[in-house]
């Protein structure tokens, strides 16, 4: 990847609402708990002995959904910028490798979503402090529930980017994206088998070790990324 390509990508996403979405996602997740705690704080505090832990778990209930939805929307927005007047053909006829174009798009999306995760941690922390719980702030738990879902959902991001860049018809990536979001939602009611990548952001697995989802997310995310990039390189430009 090169710096110039990334800075030209940043210019392209101007006025397209990318930054707004990046902030709105994590804000929405915490805002749900703002409402929750505003209406029934007393009741919620009685539910557990560890207020911070209970609060962070409540927040994290919506993180996988918001994250995967964000991946679907941002990826679709980003590729639609090139599809609109087919700028792919102009972009690829410039002296850049197709690999670097692909990696730049992935890096941009991954960075925006990482920023969302940082903001999620920040918003969670700030509102938690505002709620003025008894007991210590659980820094480690907060960190885990802010960043583990991110790494665990990288395969979804890699898959969405792959499908969006090679599909002639954008209904395909959007359909798969919507199905993915529905899977994430239903998973919280009746968990899927561990091999389904849309389960991973929930950090659930049969061993009860969230770190497994993180490691798997990074490895499988890289694999899907590589396969997607090779496919993108192999194909003729739209």
């Amino acid at each position: 990847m090169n710096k110039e390509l990334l800075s030209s990508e940043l210019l392209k996403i101007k006025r397209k609402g990318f930054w707004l979405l990046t902030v709105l996602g994590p804000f929405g997740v915490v805002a749900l708990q703002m409402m929750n705690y505003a209406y029934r704080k007393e009741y919620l505090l009685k539910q557990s002995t560890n207020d911070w832990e209970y609060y962070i778990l409540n927040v994290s209930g919506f993180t996988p959904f918001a994250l995967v939805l964000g991946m679907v929307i941002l990826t679709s927005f980003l590729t639609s910028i090139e599809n609109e007047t087919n700028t792919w053909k102009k972009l690829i006829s410039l002296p850049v490798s197709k690999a670097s174009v692909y990696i730049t798009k992935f890096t941009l999306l991954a960075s925006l979503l990482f920023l969302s995760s940082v903001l999620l941690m920040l918003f969670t922390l700030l509102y938690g402090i505002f709620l003025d719980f008894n007991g210590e702030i659980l820094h480690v738990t907060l960190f885990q529930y802010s960043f583990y879902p991110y790494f665990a959902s990288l395969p979804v991001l890699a898959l969405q980017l792959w499908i969006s860049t090679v599909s002639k018809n954008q209904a395909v990536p959007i359909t798969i994206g919507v199905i993915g979001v529905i899977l994430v939602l239903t998973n919280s009611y009746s968990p899927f088998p561990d091999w389904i990548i849309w389960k991973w952001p929930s950090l659930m697995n049969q061993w009860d070790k969230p770190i497994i989802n993180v490691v798997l997310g990074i490895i499988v995310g890289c694999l899907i990324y590589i396969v997607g990039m090779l496919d993108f390189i192999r194909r003729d430009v739209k």
Partner: protein
Amino acid sequence: MEYVVETKNLTKQFGEQKAVSSLNVTIPRGEIYGFLGPNGSGKTTTIRMLLGLMKPTSGTIHVFHKDLKKDRIHILKRIGSLVENPSYYPHLTAYENLEVWRKILGVPKEKIHEVLQIVQLSEVTNKKVKGFSLGMKQRLGIAASLLNDPELLILDEPTNGLDPSGIIEIRNLMKQLASESGMTILISSHLLSEVEQIATRVGIISKGKMLFQDSMDKLRELSKPNIALRISDAKKALRFIVSKGIEADYRDDHIFIPNHSDEDVAELVQQLVYHNFLIYRVEGKKRSLEDIFLQITQEERLV
């Protein structure tokens, strides 16, 4: 001869259909190459392959004496291009659009104002491209292709959507670029008249095959006057003329024969009269280049 572009047996197959078939395109340095062919003849497909956007099914492409397969990025640094409809980001201004490409090309920012000036879009530098007319978008595309001072300019139907004065402007710009900066230019079109005045070399393709490739002057030679005869019982007369060993063909109510000396024509007329054909007209007819182009692409014969 030094060729800036040289393809050998370039072929592209989509399923069963050969969109481009064993094409040998040769473009010498400094020439304006008019790449002509009717709709669907394979011009865009060829251009896409020249730019590395599509991989040939078979055959080779050399640009600047380098193999496109191996040196794609080095080659593309020296090329400016515009393929089919202009590509632009509607939500960005003209300046921002060029800035997106400029960053990747790594040329100084001043180039943006320079190329906008060339295509006369300076006044709308900071306007969003969304509101541009088709002609303005096309000119923005041309501006983008000039950002890196290319040695080879590849333009696929660049006058699409331009009004007559716009077409003349682009034509003059091409001429100027070729003469002042020695640029080699490939310009595709489905109308010969569009490149007739600027092209120094032409390639005519139809159904993916090259039917004619030579200098513009050679093509002009083909348009030398013919002799048209209007005769009673034309079919029989045609057979008679051909039997005399004279090349002839029948079109639009006339029998056409190549230009011959006065004596030969007089002799033929005499013979025809002698054999009781009634001769209504004997005229010298100059064929327009467009006629020749049509004839070449319709008959698909090698000239």
